């Protein structure tokens, strides 16, 4: 177990050096989506909540960091504000929404994201539908992170931090209480677990993960628009978390890696000369759809728990 983590860590550190600069974009985006997927895995695995709107918190983090940076704040402050803004938004919408369960909550989170996208695309302050442009690059102590390699390590650091937090939450009192609540809510409540408050806390924490990833995303791309955060993105996070294994630390990482590489390979295939222009879109929709259906039906616990059992 431990050797596996060390090997994975070394590999993650080595890849940005070995990979040519022009292929690093996939690596950066993979690390960022994995960061969000970790939050989804925690939310679905430990609090039993399906969020189909996780990309909203990704967007809120990105816009928080981007707006602060555009208005001349130091990038580090922007990056720190990203998870805070996302968590604050989660607390705000979560207080009423988390009264809902199951498919009601799924639709509610979807609705929240659609409302957010509507607000962003009409908000002058956010650049409207055109988007927020001219976000400066990330810099720390006067050193600007310019190359993709720098962002690869920044994204990796964020992912590692988030996984560490997740692991500590899982083994903590709160984690045990949540596991109890997921299996028997009334029993847990009877034992004195403040179920509602813990659920809200996990919701906010998973939003903070997404917001932090969004902050890095804003500095990396330097440009944000509502179109960068479609509903499909939220569903992708759910697919990755579910495929990898809910409620495990390694699961979302495995899920995000498998799916990103699969979609990347098919996009490469779809953009071959002779392929029609819509091929990449068709292939990626097909992959997400198929993988989700097959995983839920044949690997209901996800890749990581299935491997661990066999």
């Amino acid at each position, binding site marked *: 177990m431990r050797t596996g983590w060390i090997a994975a860590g070394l590999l993650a550190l080595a890849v940005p050096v070995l990979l040519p600069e022009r292929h690093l974009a996939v690596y950066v985006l993979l690390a960022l989506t994995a960061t969000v997927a970790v939050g989804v895995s925690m939310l679905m695995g430990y609090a039993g909540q399906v969020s189909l709107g996780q990309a909203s918190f990704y967007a809120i983090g990105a816009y928080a960091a981007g707006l602060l940076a555009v208005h001349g704040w130091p990038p580090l402050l922007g990056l720190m504000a990203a998870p805070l803004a996302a968590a604050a938004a989660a607390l705000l919408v979560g207080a*009423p929404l988390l*009264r809902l369960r*199951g498919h009601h909550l799924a639709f509610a989170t979807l609705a929240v994201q*659609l409302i957010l996208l509507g607000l962003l695309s009409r908000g002058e302050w956010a650049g409207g539908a055109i988007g927020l442009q001219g976000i400066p690059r990330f810099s720390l102590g006067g050193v600007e992170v310019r190359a993709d390699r720098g962002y690869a390590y920044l994204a990796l650091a964020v992912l590692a931090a988030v996984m560490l937090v997740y692991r500590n939450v899982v083994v903590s009192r709160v984690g045990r209480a949540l596991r109890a609540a997921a299996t028997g809510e009334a029993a847990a409540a009877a034992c004195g677990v403040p179920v509602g408050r813990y659920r809200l806390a996990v919701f906010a924490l998973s939003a903070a993960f997404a917001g932090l990833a969004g902050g890095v995303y804003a500095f990396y791309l330097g440009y944000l628009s509502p179109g960068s955060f479609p509903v499909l993105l939220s569903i992708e996070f759910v697919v990755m978390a579910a495929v990898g294994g809910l409620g495990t630390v390694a699961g979302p990482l495995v899920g995000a890696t498998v799916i990103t590489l699969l979609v990347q390979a098919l996009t490469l295939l779809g953009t071959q000369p002779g392929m029609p222009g819509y091929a990449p*879109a068709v292939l990626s929709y097909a992959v997400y759809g198929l993988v989700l*259906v097959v995983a839920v*039906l044949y690997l209901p616990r996800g890749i990581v728990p299935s491997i661990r059992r066999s």
Partner: protein
Amino acid sequence: MIGYLITGLGIGAGFALVGSGLVVIYRVTRVVNFAQGALAVLAAMLTASLLSAGLPHGVAETLGVLAGAAAGLLTGVLAIGRPGTAPGASLIVTLGLGLLAYAVEILIWGDQPRSFPGLGGAIDVAGARVQVHYLLIVAVALPVFAALALFFARTDLGKALSACASNPYAARVVGIDVRRMGLLSFALGGALGGLAGVLTMPVQQVSFDSDVALIVNGFAAAVLGGLTRPGVALAGGLLLGVAQTVVAGYGGGAYRLEVALVVLLTVMIAQAVRTPPAPEAAG
């Protein structure tokens, strides 16, 4: 105002049909079919193709609705076909099938919005000009809802369907094949979704991702009746359609979807506050 009212009723009847499809499936299987909007889009696109291939009106629409039913049945087979699939897992499966439908739709019809002509012309109703097609939508939807209500209340099959949801075990004991009833409900839901798509396509362009708006509006309509009462879904859909048209008419054209969303959230939260959390399994 009369114009807005009738246009709104027409649009709302479309939402109500999508919502009623959700209701029929949920009533029997406790599964919320996320692919319901995709079924409507699929049926509408197919009808457009059949019409442009020269089939007469009526035939093309019927085939479109049947295709919706077939796609619904297929969704059901995958979503609830395996014994022991939890409703939460089934929801995720229908979500995946909705994504898969995107791939199929783009492959066959491309990613541009499409439409086909419906009943042409406009008439004056109490001094307001209304496109005739909106009247057609209402005229088709109302008898469908009446038939649906009679079907569930009066026929043996309808009662058997309802029995599956309220007590699957007892239903099995008295000899009802719960799985077959579930599949039947998916096919019926698919037909209702297909009908919604076919009816509304002439007045609202449909593209492969129109299903998000359809499913959100349909769910908002259905959720008013706790997802189990088709009649309330009809009322909800009509109310939603009128509200959206009025909002759009008085200057907020861009905020139409948001109206549905806020209604949806308000109703769901109000319902959740009123009733203590049901002992429902997570997911």
